[in-house]
C-alpha cells in the first residue's frame, strides 16, 4: 500500500507537535521523531527558526553544553490555528 506523502504544512505541524510535547527537545531526537532525512530536517528547522516558531537554546546537560529546541508563542499559535489553516487549504483547493 502506498504511503501518502506528507504536505509541507503537515510536516511543520508534526515537528512543532513533537517540540511541544517534549517542551525542550534535542535536535537529534527531533530528527528521529520527524521521519525526515537529515537534509530535509535541517531545511525545515532553519525555516521554523527563521519564522520564529521555534528557538534553539544551549543548556548544560550532564556537564556538557547541549542544544535544545523549544516552542515559541508564535509556534504555539500556529498549532492552535493549524486546523483553520488546513481547512482553508482543503476547502478552497489551495
Amino acid at each position, binding site marked *: 500500500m502506498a504511503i501518502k506523502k506528507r504536505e509541507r504544512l503537515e510536516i511543520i505541524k508534526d515537528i512543532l507537535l513533537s517540540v511541544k510535547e517534549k517542551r525542550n527537545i534535542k535536535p537529534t531526537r527531533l530528527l528521529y521523531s520527524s521521519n525526515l532525512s537529515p537534509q530535509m530536517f535541517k531545511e525545515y528547522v532553519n525555516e521554523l527558526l527563521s519564522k520564529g516558531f521555534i528557538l534553539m537554546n544551549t543548556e548544560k546537560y550532564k556537564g556538557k553544553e547541549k542544544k535544545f529546541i523549544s516552542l515559541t508563542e508564535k509556534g504555539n499559535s500556529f498549532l492552535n*490555528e493549524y486546523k483553520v489553516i488546513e481547512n482553508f487549504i482543503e476547502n478552497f483547493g489551495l
Partner: protein
Amino acid sequence: MDIYNILLNNKNFLEYIYAFIISCISLMILFKTDRYFRLSLHNGLRYFRNSFLFYGLAFFWKFILADLTNLNTTSIFFSQFIFEYLLIMGGLFLLYSLIWKKFDLHKITYSSLINSKIIFLHLIAIILSLFDSFFESYKFLFISQILIFSFSIILFFKNYKKNEKKSSLPKIYILALSLGLIAWILNFFTATFFKWNTLLLIDIGILNIIFFILILFSIFRITKIKKYKNGN
C-alpha cells in the same frame, strides 16, 4: 413603480453601491485571511488573497470612476485599461491559486505579486486589456474570464473528487465559481447581443455580489471551526 424601475432611474448611484459592496467584501476577505496567511505563509493562500486584492482594487477603481460621462477619450481609455487589467489579474490569481503547486515547487522568497512566473500573468492581463481598450470592447475580458472560471471549476472539481474528506464548504465554493462563470457568460451575451441591457446588467451585478458573499461566507465558516488544541 417596481423595483427594477427604481433601480433603472438611479443607475449611477447603483454603480457606486455595487462597486462599493464588492470592494468592501474583498477587503473583508483579505482581513479575515491575513492572520492565517501570516502564520502559514502558504503559497496557495497567498495567491488566493492576491486574487481578492486585485478584485477589490478593480471595483474600488470602478467606484471612484463609476461615472465616466465627464471624462475625455484618453481618460476613458486609461480607466478602462486599469479596470480590465485589475479584473483579469484577479481571475488569473484565482486560477493560479489552484495550480501553483505545478509551478512553484520551492518556497517563495520573493514577491508573490511580481516574480518570474507571475510576470506572465501580468503580461497576459496587460495585452488583453490593451486589446479591449484599443478596440473599445470588453470581449477579451469576458472571454478570458469565462475560460479562467471554466478551468477553475474543472480543476477544483477534480481536486475535490480526489479528496477523501468531504465537507459542504467545497460545494459552496463550486457554487460560487459557477455563479461567477454564469455572470461572465451573461456579461458577454449582454454586451454582444443585448446592447448592454440595464435590466440584465442589474441581474449580473446581483450574481457577482452573491459570488463574493459566498466566498466570504465560506471564510467565516472556516474561521469559526473549533481551533486545534491538542494536535489530534
